[in-house]
C-alpha cells in the first residue's frame, strides 16, 4: 500500500506518456502522421525535380526549400488536429473518458495529456520532415530564423490541438470522427498552399484559405526557411490569426465537450426494442 497523492506534475507527465504510448501502438495513426507526409515529399521531388536554382545573392536552392516546410506544417496539423480529435472522440465513445471521470484524476490533466502528446508528436513529425529535407533535398536552415520557426510551430500546434478538441466535441460518434477530420483538413490543405501553391486562384478560394488558420501556419513556417525573408522572420499577423482560431477552438471544445459516450443510432434502436417501444429510458 502506498500513501500520498501523486504530485500533479507527475500525473500530467504520466498522461502525456500514456497518450504517446497509445499513439505509437496504433500503427495506422503513426503511419498517417509521420510517413504519409514524407511520401508527399518524395512524390514532389519526383514531380518537381531536385535541380537547384540560383537566387541572386542568396545562393543555390531546391524547390524542397519551400514545400518541405509546408509538408512539415501539414504533418504537425494532422498530429494535433486529427490525432487529438479522433483519439478523444473514440476514447469518449469507448467509455474511457467516463471511467477517468469517476477517478480522482483532475479532468484538465487528461486534456493536458492529449495536447502535450499531440504537440510532441507534431514536433517529431516536423523535425523528421525537415531533417529529411536537409539531408536528402539540400534544404537550407538559417539558425538565426530557428526561433521564429519554433515559435510558429508552438502557436500553430497549440491552435490545431485546440481545434482537435473542438473536433472531438463536435463529432457525433467516435466512428464518424476520422471522416469529419479528413473532410475538413484535406480540402483545407489544398486551399492553404500545403501541396501546391496555385497560380492565380479565384479570389474566393484565396479568401477561404486566408480565413482558416492552416494557410497562416504554412506561410509563417515557410517564411522561417524562405531565402528572401530576413531574420528573425517572425510573422506576427499570421501568428495572431492562429491564436484567434486557438481561442475559438478552445471555446467550442468547452461548450460541447462531454465525458459520457454518445449513443449511436444502433444503440437507440436496441433500447427501443428492449423496452418494447413504450418506455424510452435513458437510464440503462
Amino acid at each position, binding site marked *: 500500500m502506498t500513501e500520498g497523492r501523486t504530485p500533479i506534475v507527475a500525473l500530467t507527465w504520466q498522461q502525456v506518456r500514456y497518450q504517446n504510448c497509445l499513439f505509437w501502438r496504433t500503427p495506422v495513426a503513426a503511419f498517417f502522421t509521420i510517413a504519409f507526409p514524407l511520401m508527399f515529399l518524395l512524390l514532389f521531388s519526383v514531380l518537381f525535380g531536385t535541380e537547384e536554382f540560383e537566387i541572386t545573392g542568396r545562393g543555390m536552392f531546391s524547390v524542397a526549400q519551400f514545400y518541405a516546410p509546408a509538408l512539415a506544417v501539414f504533418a504537425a496539423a494532422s498530429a494535433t488536429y486529427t490525432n487529438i480529435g479522433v483519439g478523444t472522440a473514440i476514447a469518449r465513445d469507448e*467509455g474511457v473518458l467516463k471511467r477517468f471521470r*469517476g477517478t*480522482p484524476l483532475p479532468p484538465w490533466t487528461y486534456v493536458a495529456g492529449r495536447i502535450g502528446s499531440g504537440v510532441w508528436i507534431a514536433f517529431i513529425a516536423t523535425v523528421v520532415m525537415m531533417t529529411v529535407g536537409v539531408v536528402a533535398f539540400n534544404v537550407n536552415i538559417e539558425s538565426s530564423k530557428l526561433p521564429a520557426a519554433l515559435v510558429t510551430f508552438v502557436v500553430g500546434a497549440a491552435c490545431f490541438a485546440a481545434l482537435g478538441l473542438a473536433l472531438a466535441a463536435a463529432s457525433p460518434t467516435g466512428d464518424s470522427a476520422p471522416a469529419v477530420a479528413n473532410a475538413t483538413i484535406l480540402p483545407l490543405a489544398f486551399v492553404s498552399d500545403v501541396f501546391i501553391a496555385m497560380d492565380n486562384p479565384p479570389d474566393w478560394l484565396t479568401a477561404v484559405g486566408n480565413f482558416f488558420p492552416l494557410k497562416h501556419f504554412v506561410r509563417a513556417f515557410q517564411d522561417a526557411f524562405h531565402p528572401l525573408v530576413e531574420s528573425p522572420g517572425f510573422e506576427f499577423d499570421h501568428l495572431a490569426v492562429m491564436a484567434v482560431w486557438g481561442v475559438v477552438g478552445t471555446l467550442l471544445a468547452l461548450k460541447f465537450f462531454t465525458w459520457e459516450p454518445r449513443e449511436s443510432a444502433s444503440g437507440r434502436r436496441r433500447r427501443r426494442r428492449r*423496452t418494447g417501444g413504450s418506455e424510452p*429510458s*435513458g*437510464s440503462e
Partner: protein
Amino acid sequence: MSAIRVRGLVKTYGAVDAVRGIDLTIEPGEVFALLGPNGAGKTTTVEILEGHRQRNAGEVEVLGVDPATAGRGFRERIGIVLQTSGIDRELTVRESLLLYGALYPRRRPADEVIEITGLSEKAEARIKTLSGGQRRRVDLALGIVGDPDLIFLDEPTTGFDPSARRKSWELISNLRSLGKTILLTTHYMDEAQHLADRVAVIAGGVIVAEGTPDTLGGRRDGGATVAFRLPAAGRPPAPFDVPAGADGFVRVEVKDLAATLHGLTEWALREKAALDGLTVTRPSLEDVYLQLTREAEGD
C-alpha cells in the same frame, strides 16, 4: 454516519421519470444489492451516487458528501465498476493498473491486485487480446486498485461462466471482510443471495421491497408450496382435496405449514398412502423478485 443516505431521489429524462422518489440507507461495511429489471432505474440511481449524473430532486449523501458537487477527495475514496467498460485496448493489464493506481493516494500494488483478480497469467497481455470475462476482471481490478472505502459494482459478473462467477464472488466476499462497503446491482438472484447483507428491489423507479435476502417480500412468513403425487386411492384432506395437475401432482400453497402438513401426514398414515415425491418449497428469492416486479408493472 451511514455510507450512503438517500431521501426522495428523483431523476427525469425529458418526460420520462427514471427514478421516482427513492429512499436508501446503506451502513459502512454492508454489502447491499439493488435488484430490478432493465430500465427500472438501477443504473441511474447508482450513477447519481457515483457523481456521474445530476439529480432533479432529493437529498443524497455518500461518504458524508453530496456526490453532485464532490471533488477529488470523494473520488479517492470510491471505486467504480461501470456496466460498460472502457479501457484502452493497446495497454497491457499491468500498465492499466499502474496508470489508474497512480491516481489514488492509497493505491494497492499492481501485482497484488492482478493476483487477487486472477489475472496473473494475463498481466503482460494487451487488453484487446482478453476475453469478455477477463476484461470484466480488469474492470474489477481497476475498481479496487485505489483501495476504496466504498465500491460500486454495476452488474459485475454479467456474461461470466459459473466458475468465473464463483471466483468473483470470493473476491467480493474478501472485500467485505476488509470492511469495505459495496453497492451491487445484479440480475442474478443467486448472486444477491450469496453476497448481499441486504437487498432492495427497484421497479418502475421506486423501491418496492427491501430486506435481507432471506426475509425479502415475506419469505420467512411461513408460507410454502407443498406438492406430492396424488395417491391412486383416497382423497386427501383439505386444503389438499384439489385436482392434480397434468403431471399427477397436487400443488398447494399453504400459510400455516406445520399444522397443514400434520393433517396431511396423519391422513397418509391412516390410509397407508405413500406420499410419493413430497416436497415443501419456500419461495425462492427469484420467485419473490418476479412477483414483486410483476406487481410493480401492474400485470
